[in-house]
């Protein structure tokens, strides 16, 4: 299935034909290590952060209570999800969120397209390296480094930093999302280029193509469909995160969700959550349909 391949590539784990069953000993060691780590982690988190964990019965009561508040049980006012005016407002915010996500995906895609050639081993330090070895290695290290940093920092932290420089709004949110996504797309794109069939590239070189020509006529046409597929797949991830980035950059569904939560307007919260989930599902469907076109 397509999704599996995408996820696998994202995990840098394209199925390996030579994979063999792990030995029993290695599996036991791994299991013991994982168990010790998990126990230590729980202990450390509870020790550091206080262990006032509510009892199971209490949690159940509070969950039922919370669900009731979301649905507006026992509330005299008309619940938000029954008011068409509220739907119009939230719909407008959802549009902002979509615009933010499309801008983010577009900017990340363009940024990745401009940089992945420098992050691919084969084009910088491998078979198709430039004559100047030092230059190729330097470009590889710098661009890879930028991608790693961009990817390691979560969107929300990028947003926290960006609001110092950029006016809060849709564009600020899009930039924060795009920065993180550039790192992910950069890594995926470089892996796609390194995984390309070398035959056509060698053919181009043998017939006298210069490096730029190899890139334009060999690498790009072969890599683009896969890149577009990844970009569409990332769009699904971005739309999920755009709500969270909106908390900080004061745009879209996220910001309204934060306001309604702090003002305890529970049925408004329910409406935003509903529209959010519908939006994520719609984008999932749209992305799947568009990916079919890319094939």
């Amino acid at each position, binding site marked *: 299935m397509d999704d599996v391949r995408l996820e696998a590539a994202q995990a840098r784990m394209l199925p390996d034909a030579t994979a063999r069953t792990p030995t029993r000993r290695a599996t036991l060691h791994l299991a013991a290590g994982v168990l010790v780590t998990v126990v230590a982690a729980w202990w450390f988190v509870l020790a550091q952060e206080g262990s006032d964990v509510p009892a199971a019965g209490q*949690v159940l009561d509070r969950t039922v209570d919370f669900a009731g508040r979301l649905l507006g049980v026992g509330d005299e006012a008309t619940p938000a999800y029954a008011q068409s005016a509220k739907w119009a407002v939230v719909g407008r915010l959802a549009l902002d969120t979509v*615009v933010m996500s499309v801008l983010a995906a577009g900017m990340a895609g363009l940024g990745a397209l401009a940089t992945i050639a420098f992050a691919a081993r084969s084009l910088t330090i491998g078979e198709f390296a430039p004559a100047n070895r030092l230059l190729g290695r330097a470009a590889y290290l710098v661009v890879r480094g930028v991608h790693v940093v961009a990817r390691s920092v979560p969107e929300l932290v990028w947003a926290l930093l960006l609001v110092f420089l950029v006016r809060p709004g*849709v564009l600020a949110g899009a930039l924060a999302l795009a920065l993180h996504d550039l790192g992910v797309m950069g890594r995926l794109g470089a892996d796609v280029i390194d995984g390309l069939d070398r035959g056509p590239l060698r053919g181009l070189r043998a017939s006298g193509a210069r490096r730029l020509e190899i890139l334009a006529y060999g690498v790009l046409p072969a890599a683009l469909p896969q890149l577009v597929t990844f970009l569409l797949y990332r769009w699904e991830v971005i739309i999920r995160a755009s709500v*969270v980035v909106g908390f900080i950059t004061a745009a879209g569904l996220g910001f309204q969700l934060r306001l309604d939560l702090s003002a305890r307007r529970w049925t408004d919260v329910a409406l935003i959550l509903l529209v959010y989930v519908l939006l994520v599902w719609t984008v999932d469907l749209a992305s799947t349909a568009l990916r079919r076109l890319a094939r």
Partner: protein
Amino acid sequence: MSAAPGLVGVRPRFNRRGALTALLAGAFLASLAMVAGDELTHSGGGAAAWDLLGSLLRPDLSRAFLATVAEASLLTLGYAVAGMSVALVIGVPGAFLVSGVLTRRRVVRAGSVAAGRSVFATLRAIHELVWALLLLSILGLTPLAGVLAIGIPYGATVARVLGERLQDVPPAPPAALETAGASPWQILCYARLPLAGADMAGYVFYRFECAVRAAAVLSFIGLGGIGYRIEIALADLRFEQVWTLLAALVTVIVIVDRVSAMVRARMVV
């Protein structure tokens, strides 16, 4: 140049890739047009940029602060590990459910697959931090809210992806076992898991890397870790501390990436 026989004169009616390119470019340009009037930077933006970049050259490397950074990094890792343990408790049985490998009865299988898929799709659609906000409203400010906020959506994702891995094994070995009279459990343990196991473990480690990033921003609901320290440093305009913390976050992610590559290499060889 001659066309292949039988294809003479046949042209594709619809250029799918061209249409896709036009669609994507159109969507991007339309979005751009919607924010075109907005100003990007605010009045203090230029000065703040210089402060931020200037302090990049002198990150805070004092011993006391480095100890704080180390503790915050460990706490973030702790949240990530605890969150992933919940994700696996949900995700592994969930994978058996959504892949339908544990039953031969068609109706039961179709029902469990459909139910599992729709439940997990909803859990997955909601972002970790939105979960964190909701759980905060239910549980109050306890570390459990942070751990569950990672564990629930990640568990749903893990269930879907591991379930697909279990389904996508080569069909011959499970079929052979079935012919020999093996039960679904035996087929799972002796054919599907050995075939897909290393791949599944690799995916779990990749998810763990994502969990570290998610754990880093749990500060958003008031829990500790790297994000909490970053927020404090930003509020105090101590940009030199922000850079140290970001460097720590990048280092943790890179280390997790290396360790997972090592473990994967040991598992498949």
